[in-house]
């Protein structure tokens, strides 16, 4: 039993850690391609300064993402060998495809980071495009495996063993598409609003130059497009979860009782013992309508499922509320920013209340990303593969799980702290001092 707890915690930390870097590996290359492209079109040096600064950041964070991702390919098997036997045989090949995309990304990261003076400008930019595309693709492919855990298809089992598979079955299921869209947008939002928050803070500290402005506008452009599309993808995904994982859906919404005219609950405290969600703001028939477009529709509650097969309702519901809240806040921020920009674009760095709000939005994308992942994975419990294998049946019988949990928790702490220290270092080393060889003399010295 202890092994199970430690293994779950180690998996939680490993994934929560890796996810940040994975999101950066997906989102930051897109921003890089935008600003380097702007430089190649306009030849204005501050775009190049930005691209080189962000490339430094990407070099650091991609490496941490690569090692923490490697950790996962080990840990999935080391901690959950029984799961690995079924997952590997059924959808391991999707990790294989993801491996190709990741390989491509690693190759072109090398070319991009070290190739500023070895490649001509446009080929260098294309390397950035390959990084952005392969980064996104590897994220989408990983979600294929995750979608399969939520809705396992394409395999037959005889006792413990997979005896036949249909390798393309998972490619055909809509859940993958909904999850991939939703998560990719979440990655773009996380990175874009974090970048925007950072440069808004620089602007508030008096750095109101073309460099800061370009960074803010580029980040808010990516952030706003993603924030507008995100509710649409979320709605489609939630409707699909309602159809295929009703228990998770009920936990997300704090829906204990099966009822018609189910209300949409905002906030609130799901009390598992009492079987009701207290203190929520309720919109009558809202949930029935959102789930089915019919306000009278019946929404199955947790009461349809034995208690032993419930996920942790509190965590699932809270995480869901946090995710939606973060998304709504970032959407509002985007509207505010672009409305202000549209009214008077030259004064955008002087709108101090707007800048303060953007600073507050800095962590919200990542908070939303992590919370959304909690909804997906905690909501799937107690199953590791929905309906096929329980998490507790998958854990390794090997001794020493607790010790490894402690070791890896320390490792992630050290890595995380070091990354923060080094990011501060990158931020304070001015552009003209950075050892990137193609630095031009007339470029502005800034962060």
């Amino acid at each position, binding site marked *: 039993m202890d092994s199970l707890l430690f293994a779950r915690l180690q998996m939680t930390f490993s994934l929560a850690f890796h996810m940040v870097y994975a999101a950066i590996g997906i989102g930051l290359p897109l921003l890089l391609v935008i600003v380097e492209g702007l430089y190649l079109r306009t030849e204005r040096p501050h775009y190049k300064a930005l691209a080189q600064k962000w490339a*430094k950041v990407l070099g650091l964070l991609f490496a941490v993402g*690569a*090692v923490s991702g490697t950790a996962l390919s080990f840990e*999935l098997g080391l901690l959950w060998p029984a799961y690995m036997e079924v997952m590997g045989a059924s959808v*391991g090949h999707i990790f*294989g495809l993801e491996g190709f995309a990741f390989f491509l990304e690693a*190759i072109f990261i090398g070319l991009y980071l*070290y190739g500023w003076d070895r490649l001509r400008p446009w080929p260098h930019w294309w390397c950035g495009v390959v990084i952005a595309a392969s980064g996104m693709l590897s994220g989408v492919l990983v979600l294929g495996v995750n979608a399969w855990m939520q809705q396992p298809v394409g395999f037959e089992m005889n006792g413990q063993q997979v005896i036949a598979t249909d390798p393309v079955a998972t490619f055909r299921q809509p859940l993958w598409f909904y999850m991939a869209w939703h998560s990719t947008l979440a990655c773009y939002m996380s990175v874009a609003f974090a970048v925007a928050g950072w440069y808004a803070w620089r602007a508030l500290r008096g750095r109101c130059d073309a460099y800061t402005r370009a960074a803010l506008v580029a980040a808010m452009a990516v952030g706003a497009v993603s924030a507008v599309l995100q509710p649409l993808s979320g709605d489609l995904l939630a409707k699909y979860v309602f159809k295929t994982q009703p228990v998770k859906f009920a936990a997300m919404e704090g829906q204990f009782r099966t009822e018609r005219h189910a209300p949409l609950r905002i906030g609130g405290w799901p009390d598992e013992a009492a079987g009701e969600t207290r203190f929520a703001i309720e919109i009558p028939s809202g949930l029935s309508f959102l789930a089915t477009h019919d306000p009278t529709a019946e929404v199955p509650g947790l009461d349809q499922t034995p208690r032993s097969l419930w996920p942790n309702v509190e965590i699932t519901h809270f995480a869901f509320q946090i995710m939606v809240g973060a998304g709504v806040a970032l959407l509002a921020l985007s509207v505010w920013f672009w409305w202000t920009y549209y009214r008077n674009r030259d004064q955008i760095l002087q709108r101090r209340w707007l800048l303060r709000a953007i600073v507050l939005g800095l962590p919200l994308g990542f908070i939303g990303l992590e919370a959304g992942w909690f909804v997906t994975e905690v909501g799937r419990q107690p199953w590791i593969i929905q309906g096929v294998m329980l998490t507790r049946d998958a854990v390794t019988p090997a001794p020493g799980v607790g010790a490894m949990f402690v070791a*890896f928790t320390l490792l992630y702490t050290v890595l995380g702290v070091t990354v923060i220290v080094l990011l501060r270092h990158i931020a304070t080393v001015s552009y003209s001092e950075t050892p990137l060889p193609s630095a031009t003399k007339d470029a502005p010295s800034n962060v």
Partner: protein
Amino acid sequence: MFDWPSMWIDLSALAALVGMMAYALLGGADFGGGMWDLFASGPRKKEQRLAIQKAMGPVWEANHVWLVFVLVVLFTCFPRGYSVLAIALFLPFHLALLGIMLRGASFVFRSYQSRETAAVEISAWGVVFGAASIISPLLLGTAFGVVTEGGITLTDQREVVLTRPAPWLSPYCVANGLLALSTCAYLAAVYLTNETVGALRDDFRQRAIFAGTATAILAGLVLLFAWQEAAWFFHRLLSWQAAPIVLAGLICFAGSAWSVFARRYRLSRIFAAGEIGLLLLGWAAAQYPYLVYPDILFTEAAAPRETLRFVVLSLPFGGLVLLPSLWLLFRVFKTRPAL
């Protein structure tokens, strides 16, 4: 011809083997680079570290991905084998993983610490980088020992049992670990002679001679201990299906060592690569058809045929994209001496 009963299983195993060869040749040399960084010495200490930094910087992440490739092929095509290894080698694999993570992270951390001290002065992350570069190949080598000596067995209920506690600490397994370590050091030194000139090149030539000697001694020790501890594997190595390959590998090793003495560095690199490739092939030939001797055959561990076929058929497509990309990467950064 292209339709023997275990075709897809064999092709999948071959894919894993080729991935292991690539990881040994490329990632292995990066581990060796970390060791030479830690043990940089003499009047050109600083230049040695810079040369290693320059040689690894652009390529280590791509080299590292070969490990992920091997893992993915293993757990997709031979999921039962992967889970048995994961249970039996829970501790050494976890510690190797710790080393692999620290190696990659510290290499990058160090180069970001500050421009002046990066790779030149020994720093805390520099020490971690060197130590992690030693731990990982050592542990992976001992794990290799456990698998070949038959240290992992299954009960009738298919539960994983080690034949004795901590089998990775036996002389044979430890010798395997040290052999992996010295081979990585040798590869790195040989590669670095190809990427440097002048006195610095001579530094790495000396290191290659040193590591090569150690490798030869350790290889002898591994065989000796194998004869005592891993009798099955020892006899398989001497069987007709493996012995010619192993012998060819040893000839390549001798050729590589001779080339280092004769300062024929390019030739030495080619021979060294041939050595690693052939010895791994010889190991595979000796161990086939067992994935984990004595209880798990490749056929028992394999995933259903459809999955294997998907993986094997996807490889040419992946190669079509990846091989030109890799060629570009190595062409851009490896065509002229870095220093």
